[in-house]
Each structure stands twice: as C-alpha cells, then as structure tokens.
C-alpha cells in the first residue's frame, strides 16, 4: 500500500491528537474487557482440559469372562472408543486396600467381592456427556460386560461449564465488537468533519471514495493497534498480579495474543470501511 496514505494517516493522527487519544483509550477499554475475558477463558480452558483428561469410563467385566474374551473386547474398545487398561480382581482389591487403609474394615468384608474391569480413556471426540452415555449403552451390550460407570453427573456439569464459557465468549465478543464499531464510527465521523474542507477539495479534484477513505482507515488501524497494545499491557499486569496469589495463572499463549491483535485489526478495518462508506456520502457531492 502506498506510503502516501500512511503519511496522511499519521498527519491526521498528529493533527487531531486529542481525538486520536480519546479513540485509543475508548477502544482500549473495550478491548481490555475482551482481553480479560480471554485471560479467564484461557486459564479456565486449561483447568477444564486438565479435568477432561481425567475423564474415564470403567467397564466392569463378568466373572466368567476369560482372558481371550477380554483381549478381544479390549481390541474392539481400542478400535471404537479409546485406549483401555485391564484391572484384575486382585489389582482392584489392592487399590481398594490402599484407599481404605483400615485393616479391620477389610477383615469384615472377608473375600474379594470386586470384579475385574477395564479403565477406558475415551477419544477426545467422545469426551462429552451425550457421547459417553451412548458409549456406555453400547458397551453394556457386550456379553463380557457386567456394568459401565462414567460419573455422568459431573461430566454433565463439566459440559455445561464448557458450553457456558463458549456462550459467554460469544456474548463478550459481540459486545466488544459492537463497542468498537460504535467508537470507530463516531471517531471517523468526527475525523472526517474535522477535515471536511480537505475531503471536499479531494472529491472536487476527482478523488475516488477509496482514495479519500484509505487514510482514515489507516488511522483507525493505527489507533486500534495502539489500543490493543494498551489492552494487552493492562491484562499482562493483571495476570502478573493474579499469578502471585493463585498458582497456575498464565498469560495468553502467543497464538491467542496474535489472534486477538489480528481480530481487532480486521474488525477495525471492516468497521471503518463500512462507516466511511456512509460518512463520505454526507460530505461533498
């Protein structure tokens, strides 16, 4: 893109510093809100991912199921649902012993009543309540299987939490986008009015809408870039403060940060092009 337009944008930025700074701080406020939410989302997603990794399904086996049958079942599970680990009756009793820890209670139980089982770590695509329920139903159809357990209630809660986070992300994203469009539209209107004489002269000289609008679009991009950097700096400060009080609070990964900057710039570009299309029609014939 021609350097001329960047020079014009910078000239306007300098000529109307008050307006430019007001725009930067207004946008920074909206973007900081989005960035804070991103930070929360990122850390929540990390926590949910950690919990999600621990989602597993326990398939209790019939006492009659022989070694060959169990191996055949494991192969089918591996093909359809995920990786499985065999836990024999003796291993299950040992784990139970370790968990209970009180020999008197164990003596009262007498013989080992625990069945052998398969611990199934599901494929990522199946780690939601609906899929897990369906898997459980299917697994219960196998003759070697006595029962299937997967902690449906907390899986449901986890799914609801994920869905809620996604909905909130969309709502916050929309709110911030609307705020940005509103701020940019009004700023650009003021910027065009402040340079009305120049715009009118350009139009009389035969400047296309693109020629007139491009410096304003670049100015909006410069202001948005400054606002994004301010917002990220604020959120970095917040993360540093939180990290001293809470373990594991991390800043946004580079991919998220770059996406945030890129998204804000794309939005600013779209909003300013749309706004200028309307505004320029009111200036000059």
């Amino acid at each position, binding site marked *: 893109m*021609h350097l*001329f337009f960047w020079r014009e944008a910078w000239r306007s930025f300098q*000529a109307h510093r008050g307006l430019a700074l007001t725009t930067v701080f207004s946008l920074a406020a909206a973007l900081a809100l989005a960035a804070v939410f991103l930070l929360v989302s990122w850390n929540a997603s990390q926590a949910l991912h950690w919990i999600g990794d621990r989602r597993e399904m326990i398939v209790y086996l019939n006492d009659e199921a022989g070694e060959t049958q169990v191996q055949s079942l494991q192969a089918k599970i591996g093909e359809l649902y995920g990786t499985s680990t065999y836990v024999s009756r003796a291993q299950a009793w040992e784990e139970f012993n370790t968990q209970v820890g009180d020999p008197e209670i164990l003596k009262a139980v007498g013989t080992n009543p625990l069945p052998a089982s398969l611990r199934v770590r599901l494929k990522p695509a199946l780690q939601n309540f609906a899929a897990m329920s369906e898997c459980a139903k299917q697994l219960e159809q196998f003759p070697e299987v006595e029962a299937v357990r997967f902690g449906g209630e907390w899986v449901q809660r986890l799914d609801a939490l994920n869905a809620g986070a996604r909905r909130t992300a969309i709502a916050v994203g929309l709110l911030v986008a609307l705020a940005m469009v509103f701020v940019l539209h009004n700023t650009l209107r003021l910027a065009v009015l402040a340079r009305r*004489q*120049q715009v009118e*002269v*350009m*139009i*009389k*000289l*035969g*400047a*296309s*809408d693109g*020629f007139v609008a491009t410096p304003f679009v670049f100015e909006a991009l410069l202001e948005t870039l400054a606002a994004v950097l301010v917002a990220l700096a604020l959120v970095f400060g917040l993360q540093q403060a939180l990290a001293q009080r809470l373990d594991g609070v991390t800043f946004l990964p580079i991919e998220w940060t770059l996406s945030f900057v890129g998204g804000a710039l794309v939005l600013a570009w779209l909003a300013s092009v749309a706004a200028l299309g309307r505004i320029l*029609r009111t200036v000059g*014939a």
Partner: protein
Amino acid sequence: MIQFEHVSKRYGERLALDDVSWRMNEGERVCVLGHSAAGKTTLLRLITHETQPTSGTIAIGTLRGGRLSRAHRALLRRTIGVIYEDFRLLGDRSVFENVALAVRIAGHFSDSDVIPRTLRALEEVGLHGKQAALPGELSFGERQRCAIARAIVNRPAILLADEPTGALEPRSASEVLALLGRIHQEGAAVLLGTTRPEVAEAFGGRRIVLEDGRLREGGTPEHAFMPVPAPQSFEAPHAAQAPPAPYTGGA
C-alpha cells in the same frame, strides 16, 4: 465536448437555470458572462456533476445524461481541471503538496511521477520558487496561480474557471487571464465564468451571456454565443512587464 440540451435547474422555489441549451467544442475558449446569481456557477457545477439538472440533458465527452455513480463522477472530475474564485487550497500543506495531491488523485504515487509533474506545473505558473510556502504565505494572485497549477497538472482536456479573478487585483488578474489564454493555446478547452465584462473582454473567445438563469436574447445558441474577435489585455501594463512562465502543457 460539452452539450446542454434544454437544461433547467431549480433550487427549491428559485430557478437557477431555465431551459438552457448550448455546446462547447474541443479546444474552444468560452466565457460565461452574467450578473451575480445569473446561473454561472450552477452551469459549472452541472458540468462537474456536483449538482444534477432538474430537467434536460447534459453530455460531457462520452458521458451523457443521468446521475453518475460516485466512481464515474470521480473519473469525470479527474479529466476536468477546475479553478475557483476562493482557490480551495489546503492551508496546512505547501504549494508543492497542494499541486501534488492532484497528481496522486490521478493515480500516480511514485516520486518519479509526482515530483517532475508537480514542478513542471509550478514552473508553468511561475511558482517554482515558492513550492515550500504555505498558501497563507502567498499573495492572492500567487494562490490563484497555485490553484491553476493544481488544475492543469494532470493536463485536463477541459479547464473550468469560476470567477478566477474575483479576488485578485488588476495585475494578478491580468496574469491569471494571460495564463489561461496560454493554456487554451496549448490545446485545452477553457470555460470561464465571470460577472465582469472587462474580464470577458480580456479573456476573449466565444461568449455566453446568462441573465436570471436564461441565455440572453431568446436563449438560442446562435444569439447567446457572441464571438469576441481577439483576446485583449485586462488593464495589463504590469502583466506585459512580468508575464508568468509560458504554458507548455502540450509539449
């Protein structure tokens, strides 16, 4: 090149142009003479599509009638040079930047295009030594010459001048008229609007007289177009002593 057919323009209750028909050929020199509010500026604004006729048809080159899209209007204006009474220069830019802006609007952005074209236009109007000055630092005559440089820098086929000497003292007015005369001699069609008969005399060429929005003497082109035999000087003793640099637009 420019043709008006039964063009009327109304602003609310006021009829600015009333059934005006006339034409202007390539390379012609035409002066529109009329009192204040006779419709001269409206006529010029109709040519540049800054306003639309209430009725009638206007043809500019191959563009004929109807409301043009914004893109086509911009394209049309890039082929026409316009000079205004109040110069319409950008006060926060140097003389060079004001003229260079028109070059960039025409789609030339590299310095190797912009600088020589701009300097040449400034030289043609005798402002090459003032390229760094701001318009506010120039005399009115120099400002108008700067506006002329901006109008001719892209070598337009048509040059419209709306009362170009209105704000100037006689010597500067003479210089501007002499400059317009040279631009015409180099091949551009020049259409000048003025309220002052002495300016029309000095400018020469064919004359259209507008009175209350109508062409005088019945409004037929034959009557309205009063040829003036030869360009004359306009109180020009000073202009003869210090003429602006020769126009070499066709070179």
